């Protein structure tokens, strides 16, 4: 297993057998120790990236649920006279509040791309000028189509995931933020700062009923992305050669083997 031609690791035969306490208490068997020799970890996602991911996930969940309800409101409730009842108002409030949080978090995330490690920048561009990247994208697509026996190891996003993140999060969320604020500007009024910043969108679509439809279709695009994203993360966690779910919690990417490729 520690053959130097296929392993990344440099064997160190002089090292003492590790994890004495765990061995002696029966928690570490010889094969566990052997597996441990192959483990390596890279710190990929720094704390701000991880916090952003989970804030974003929570905001998107709230936005999808409330957004759907704004398009198709729940049945009429007569708890009190209209003056004392505000539940559709609360649904809209939750939508706007989550939208504001998502936007501020996204701006913070963009800022962090400038000061964070190189993995924090991966979300914001696709290396489309690299032929090799396209070939790797095809390779990963073939792995998902069961045409490749084994996936490759990656530190950051694999090319297919990278492509999906860029399309749905970087571009998709930007689209949702812009159309969302334009719709918000309608309610805020033509003298508001929101209208000054996003009124051009209203001018472009002319009739804002169209804007509602576009924003609504965008919601479904992000919903579909979320479904695929969660499935792919769980599947990769089980079937790929590196960690997935723990990585977005702790930031560390660990690997299941130490082969060179």
């Amino acid at each position, binding site marked *: 297993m520690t053959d130097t031609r296929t392993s990344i690791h440099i064997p160190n035969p002089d090292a003492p057998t590790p994890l004495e306490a765990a061995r002696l208490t029966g928690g570490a068997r010889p094969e566990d120790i052997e597996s441990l020799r192959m483990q390596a970890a890279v710190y990929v996602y720094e704390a701000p990236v991880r916090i952003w991911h989970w804030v974003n996930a929570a905001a998107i969940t709230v936005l999808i649920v409330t957004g759907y309800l704004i398009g198709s409101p729940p049945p009429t409730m007569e708890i009190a006279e209209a003056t004392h009842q505000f539940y*559709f108002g609360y649904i809209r409030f939750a939508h706007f509040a989550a939208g504001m949080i998502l936007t501020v978090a996204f701006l913070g995330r963009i800022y962090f791309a400038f000061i964070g490690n190189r993995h924090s920048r991966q979300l914001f561009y696709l290396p489309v000028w690299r032929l090799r990247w396209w070939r790797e994208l095809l390779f990963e697509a073939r792995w998902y189509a069961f045409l490749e026996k084994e996936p490759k190891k990656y530190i950051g996003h694999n090319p297919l995931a990278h492509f999906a993140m860029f399309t749905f999060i970087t571009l998709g969320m930007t689209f949702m933020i812009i159309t969302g604020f334009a719709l918000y500007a309608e309610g805020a009024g033509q003298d508001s700062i929101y209208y000054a910043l996003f009124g051009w969108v209203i001018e472009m679509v002319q009739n804002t009923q169209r804007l509602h439809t576009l924003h609504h279709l965008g919601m479904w695009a992000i919903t579909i992305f979320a479904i695929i994203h969660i499935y792919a993360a769980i599947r990769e966690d089980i079937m790929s050669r590196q960690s997935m779910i723990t990585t977005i919690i702790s930031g560390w990417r660990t690997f299941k083997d130490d082969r060179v490729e």
Partner: protein
Amino acid sequence: MSEIETFYEVMRRQGITRRSFMKYCSLTAAALGLGPSFVPKIAHAMETKPRTPVIWVHGLECTCCSESFIRSAHPLAKDVVLSMISLDYDDTLMAAAGHQAEAALEDTIQKYRGNYILAVEGNPPLNEDGMFCIVGGKPFVEQLRHAAKDAKAIISWGACASYGCVQAAAPNPTQATPVHKVITDKPIIKVPGCPPIAEVMTGVITYMLTFDRLPELDRQGRPKMFYSQRIHDKCYRRPHFDAGQFVENWDDDYARKGYCLYKMGCKGPTTYNACSTVRWNEGVSFPIQSGHGCIGCSEDGFWDQGGFYDRLTSINAFGVEANADKVGFAAAGAVGAGIAAHIAASALKSAQRKKQENEEV
């Protein structure tokens, strides 16, 4: 120009007393949302300014704008036509017809070059060289271009002139085109609606007359004083919207209680107009007050936003009628089924590999 009477002279000639004249000025100020200090200004303008010549042309339209206009109460359409403006050409209102009418048009253009206002009701169809709308033996688009050339400003009356309205709805066989896409070198005021509210029409004219300038326009070229807020923003049923109290069906108890018509497809939240404040027929009512949702008639392409009674716009793609939710549910369902199949295939594949590895060992 000097032989043109001032407004005041015209009114006095018609037997209107000074007292009535001042009353009229106060009412006009009130209708425009101006303070009492503007009353003498309006009176002064009417006493000194010659009447503004207006040419009113009709393209592809149904004359509902004219019908609305002549029902204006504040100010009365009669006052506008007979006292305020000098309506020199309007083929549906003028006494002259045929060659006489066309001669009046030419006359006005020659006489007041660069000083008249061109009011356009309807729009020109451009297909087949404009043959779908003939006025005085020529395509309307030619009359429009001719009359627009020397106009001071253009008023686009109604949804037709502003956006195209029903004749421009998909597939728009005559290629009906809104005025601002044909005439691009003149200031254009859009006064959309199908029809626009009478008081909005006369209010815009009165403003232009009084201040001798165009009213302040929004990003889409509509007068801000009437089109800067949505029906929804000033709707008296708005508290029911915020409370989540909606009419679920026509004729249900909620409809009788006057709850919000949002679920019945009311386009109030996306429609900019003054219906919920100015209302119609001397402020008697407006659609929502009468129990029917707003159909968004003052918005661009309102015929093509799906049913008037649907909240979500229907999207017609590949010949299948659907809305955003149906498209979304179908796509999410397909992806979900795909994922389920992918899980099964992944599990089978890895089981197969394990079996092979075990056999090799």
